[in-house]
């Protein structure tokens, strides 16, 4: 079978599996819809959390980003894993003991009132929608590149599948589909990684292959890569270009942002006990680390492979993958010196992403209409293709390529579903049930939850089809805002008996507004000033959430000292969540 029929087969089979699970696990009550009844095994929850967490960005983009950033890619590797230590030690067990449905639920109860609850809902919706738009886009890209359907059709198929299991099954449906999706995505990630590690080093385990000697040579792969890059005029792969303080701030913002992301936190509401929540975080990180420790190997091998097969090769001799990605528009070649040979060097080959003119150049290449730069580099390459093109670059069998398409879809769909669920529950539970229409029945609330989920899917799909031009740029928002708003409020709610409503609300607002303003200023209002010379303390917009969190803590502490103390029954709540005994599964109400 050829690549396309295999891809249809794999994607079709995996979708049939997800829909089958959705029908099998329909939710009958709000408790099942919100927290899967609270009976999920810690290992199953660990897998579901891993799939929930690892998005299209982790699966498709991360290794490519690392390939081109080298050491600086560390911020994502440590930032997106280290957050689980913070989550496991400081938040998850206590929130599980608290035993309610949503993150705003905790903030609303701990800070006694609807002001805190509504502020938390706003933070949650901003964070989650930012994130979900990118997922739907990822679904569309995989469809258009592997299955030859329009991005719009791809997004609509994706929406229909998510609709099936998120609206019917709620958290219960999502949990068990995520377990299946984890298996699909990790298999799809590891198989090509093992092949490529074998190809380049002869060592089948990518984590070890990264430290091994290049096949047939006497120096380690990383040293070879460093030398190759230096020869071409790049900085060495194993050393970074970012300043230490910026790397520190970005890593910190990503870590505490991860710990404050609502769709990750609610996964820990689904296990039966407090001790299960702790264990489950360990399993989640173990399953995540399988991909995250493989990614740096994939990145380094891909960069080496890319240079080997592209640099100093005549265009007429290039491998088919180079031209097929050129046809899609993610690779562009501009023969600046008219020698018919591709030169790869530092810097952009021309300004912006390629726009292609009609017809072909003398070598048969697509004509690029952009203004060339002065640099020697002739190749534009979109970082996202490194994982998707890797199997082709390494000439792997067609079924591996089909597998990667199914894996990318699993990663995007599982994260989208988790995000849509927290959006819909925060609307039906926190806004409607707890604020606007108190006293509605469980059945009514469930209906509202389903309507909210359907609406959220429609909005996400719209954003996927008509992506605002800044999707890639606003990813920094999601983590920065979670780090600066939700994380400090939850942390202080558990570890401080004295933190009151006034302190927490003003802290959340201060962190949120400061971080929001800083990112908007540098990304949208004055992008020309977005460089280290103008940043505060040398911290980029990606890392500013760390400073926003500090501001949140400081504001909250100061305000709480001059306002009314915490009521006795709320202090009792804090004492209650600090001990594991007496955990309840959330009650319907």
């Amino acid at each position, binding site marked *: 079978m050829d690549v396309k029929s295999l891809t249809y087969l794999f994607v079709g089979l995996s979708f049939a599996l997800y829909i089958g699970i959705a029908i099998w696990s329909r939710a009958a009550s709000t408790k099942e819809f919100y927290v899967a009844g609270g009976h999920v095994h810690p290992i199953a929850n660990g897998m579901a959390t891993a799939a929930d967490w690892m998005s299209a960005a982790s699966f498709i983009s991360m290794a490519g980003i690392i390939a081109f950033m080298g050491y600086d890619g560390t911020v994502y590797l440590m930032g997106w*894993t280290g957050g689980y230590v*913070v989550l496991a030690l400081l938040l998850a067990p206590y929130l599980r003991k608290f035993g309610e449905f949503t993150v705003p639920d905790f903030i609303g109860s701990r800070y006694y009132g609807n002001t805190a609850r509504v502020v938390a809902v706003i933070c949650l919706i901003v964070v989650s929608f930012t994130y979900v738009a990118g997922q739907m886009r990822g679904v569309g890209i995989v469809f258009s590149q592997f299955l030859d359907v329009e991005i719009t059709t791809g997004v609509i198929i994706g929406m229909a599948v998510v609709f099936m299991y998120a609206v019917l099954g709620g958290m219960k449906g999502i949990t068990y589909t995520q377990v299946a999706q984890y298996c699909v995505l990790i298999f799809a990630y590891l198989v090509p990684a093992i092949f490529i590690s074998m190809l380049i080093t002869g060592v089948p385990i990518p984590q070890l292959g990264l*430290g091994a000697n290049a096949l047939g040579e006497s120096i380690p792969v990383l040293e070879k890569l460093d030398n190759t890059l230096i020869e071409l005029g790049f900085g060495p792969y194993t050393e970074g270009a970012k300043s230490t303080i910026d790397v520190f701030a970005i890593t910190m913002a990503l870590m505490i942002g991860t710990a404050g992301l609502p769709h990750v936190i609610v996964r820990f509401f689904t296990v039966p006990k407090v001790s299960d929540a702790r264990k489950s975080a360990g399993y989640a990180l173990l399953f995540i680390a399988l991909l995250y420790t493989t990614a740096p190997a994939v990145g380094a091998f891909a960069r080496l492979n890319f240079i080997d097969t592209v640099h100093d090769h005549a265009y007429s001799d290039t491998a088919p993958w180079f031209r097929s990605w050129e046809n899609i528009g993610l690779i562009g070649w501009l023969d600046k010196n008219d020698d018919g040979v591709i030169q790869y060097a530092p810097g952009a080959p021309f300004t912006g992403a390629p726009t292609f003119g009609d017809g072909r150049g003398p070598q048969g290449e697509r004509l690029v209409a952009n203004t060339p730069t002065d640099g020697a580099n002739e190749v534009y390459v979109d970082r996202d293709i490194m994982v998707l093109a890797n199997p082709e670059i390494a000439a792997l069998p067609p079924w591996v390529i089909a597998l990667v398409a199914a894996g990318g879809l699993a990663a995007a769909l599982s994260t989208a579903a988790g995000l849509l669920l927290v959006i819909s529950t925060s609307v039906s539970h926190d806004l409607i049930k707890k604020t606007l229409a108190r006293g509605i029945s469980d059945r009514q609330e469930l209906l509202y939850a389903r309507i909210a989920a359907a609406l959220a899917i429609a909005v996400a799909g719209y954003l996927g089809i008509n992506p605002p031009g800044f999707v890639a740029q606003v990813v920094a928002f999601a983590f920065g805002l979670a780090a600066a708003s939700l994380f400090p409020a939850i942390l202080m709610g558990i570890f401080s008996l004295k933190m009151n409503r006034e302190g927490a609300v003003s802290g959340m607002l201060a962190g949120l507004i400061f971080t929001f303003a800083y990112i908007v200023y540098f990304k949208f209002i004055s992008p020309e000033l977005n460089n280290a010379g103008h940043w505060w303390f040398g911290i980029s917009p990606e890392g500013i959430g760390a400073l926003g969190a500090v501001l949140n803590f400081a504001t909250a502490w100061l305000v709480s000292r001059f306002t009314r103390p915490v009521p006795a029954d*709320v202090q009792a709540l804090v004492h209650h969540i600090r001990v594991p*005994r007496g955990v309840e599964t959330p009650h319907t109400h």
Partner: protein
Amino acid sequence: MYIGPSSRGSGDIVTREQGHSAGQETAEQNTSESADSASNQAYWRANLKLGAVLLIIWFVVSFGFGILLVEPLNKIPFFGFKLGFWWAQQGAIYVFIVLIFVYAWAMKRLDRKYDVHDD
């Protein structure tokens, strides 16, 4: 016992702060006996101590070895890696996993020692 967050409206808290009804009085005294006891306070202190030790390790391997000390460590070769680079892109992640499982195991012991376990 603790009454549960959902049984409380936000509006009635201020009034309860000033004038307790008899029923609530009992509920709160019970809470302070069970949840705020000396034993539970000792459990909480032990928990904080354990958490602090593990978070120091978390900080040292990631922000320490992987970021602040990466340049001096990179002078040391380590199985084909530069040591600082290995900590940043591999080692720190392995330690993170171990830290969470150690925490889960040690907390289970503390839960039993102070008789607050959940099974």
